[in-house]
């Protein structure tokens, strides 16, 4: 019997709450028998159940009209869905950066494939992100693709921090002419079960075939050859996932797409999406 600190004879609120949720496992029978004959524990259990009942009777809170109006206005101001992806290359962000613009579609796609293939290979070979993609992009001189196989674990809580860190580190590495590994601060740690540089099996198709990855990417960009800022073969919680950062359709914002290994033209296999405002270089 797991006891409380104030009285070793009785179950704590935590233990009783676990008992109510069926989380007590092997101790459940003994605990239940104890509670049955213990008025103190019965009172505590009643407090827990009363707490639960109080939560269930909280009064309804309709959305205030000013909040509803604000959201309606924001949605009304959002670009029509059908126009979002096609406008991607025409946003201010893309006009002001050296990009694939100006190339024919075929050349752009070819450069993108080359950048991704070389970027991935180069990162895996010598941990120098981006250098290969710069060379591969040649005359187009696009934004460098940061492609890596970190195997690290992304979550909603850390994804923005991590992608910004990866992009910042890669820029620093290019500036100083050397790779700058992220500090081992927990965010940058690879999953211990997944060695850095190896790709989880469900992602192998995307990783090993530039065509498959490009088709996946084009499904996000409505067929436009938009060069990603970051591609990381990693994990989303425990699930293998590719983290892709693209220049956002909202000027000044970047989009983060978390994709499953099934990503294809028919189904982008999007696990999670968010956008963020990148910090100034």
């Amino acid at each position, binding site marked *: 019997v797991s006891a409380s600190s104030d009285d070793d004879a009785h179950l*704590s*609120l*935590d233990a*009783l*709450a*676990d008992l*109510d*949720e*069926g*989380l007590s496992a092997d101790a459940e029978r003994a605990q239940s028998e104890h509670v049955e004959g213990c008025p103190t524990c*019965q*009172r*505590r*259990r*009643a*407090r*827990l*159940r*009363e*707490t*639960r*009942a*109080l*939560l*269930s*009777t*909280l*009064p*309804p*809170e*309709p*959305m*205030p009209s000013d*909040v*509803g109006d*604000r*959201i*309606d206005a*924001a*949605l*009304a101001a*959002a670009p*029509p*869905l*059908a126009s*979002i992806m096609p406008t991607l290359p025409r946003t201010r962000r893309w006009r002001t950066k050296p990009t694939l613009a100006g190339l024919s579609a075929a050349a752009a796609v070819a450069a993108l494939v080359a950048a991704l293939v070389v970027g991935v290979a180069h990162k895996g070979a010598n941990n120098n992100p981006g250098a290969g993609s710069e060379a591969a992009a040649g005359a187009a001189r696009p934004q460098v693709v940061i492609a890596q196989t970190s195997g690290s674990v992304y979550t*909603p*809580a850390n994804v*923005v921090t991590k992608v910004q860190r990866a992009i910042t580190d890669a820029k620093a590495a290019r500036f100083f002419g050397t790779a700058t590994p992220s500090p081992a601060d927990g965010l940058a740690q690879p999953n211990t079960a997944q060695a850095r540089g190896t790709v989880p099996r469900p992602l192998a198709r995307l990783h090993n075939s530039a065509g498959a990855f490009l088709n996946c990417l084009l499904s996000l960009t409505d067929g436009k050859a938009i060069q990603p800022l970051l591609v990381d073969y990693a994990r989303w*919680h425990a699930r293998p996932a590719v983290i892709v950062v693209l220049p956002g*359709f909202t000027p000044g914002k970047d989009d983060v797409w978390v994709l499953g290994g099934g990503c294809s033209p028919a*189904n*982008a*296999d*999007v696990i*999670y*999406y*968010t*956008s963020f405002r990148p910090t100034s270089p």
Partner: protein
Amino acid sequence: MSPPVFGARDDVGADDRALLARHLDGDRDAFGELVHRHRDRLWRVALRTLGDPEDAADAVQDALLSAYRAAASYRGDAAVTTWLHRIVVNACLDLARRRAVRPTVPLEDASPPAVPDDTAARDTANDVVAALRKLPVEQAAALVLVDVEGYPVADAAEMLEVPVGTVKSRCARGRARLAELLGDDRAPTRNPADPVPVQPDERGEEQT
């Protein structure tokens, strides 16, 4: 509380899917209609989880704009409302984590929720809402979905993108902490031996 209408879920789900499909086809009004169907519930989840109306408004707006843009990411393997809740809950958790420290409002300093002017009910609701704000946001979100909104644990797990056991554990920890915060002086209003009233769906889920 307005519990989910489980019996009508299939009809609601089909209508929601139709609205989302119209949105993807370029119907400018469809997403707004979808939002209007669910916005009160999404609002309650955000407000109770974050405890601050301004934060809740920001989180819901960000979430709904994300859902508008990423509608193509809806894969049909969950109800549309589950998908919307997932995006809203994620926005709430992101917001709370970005702030690093949740607002720790003393019980007596908490701004009162808008409740009917029934003294006993208002005082109780104020205490409960203030105590919710003192929980870790993950526990608050689980309790809001399961105990406040009455969603089955399995649905809450989908919304929170965690295993069912994690939802149960967060709820258990949260209830124990809330019971502590609400204090010993809140005597049970019924015989401890009486079963706690829970949603039929939820009871069934938790007995598995």
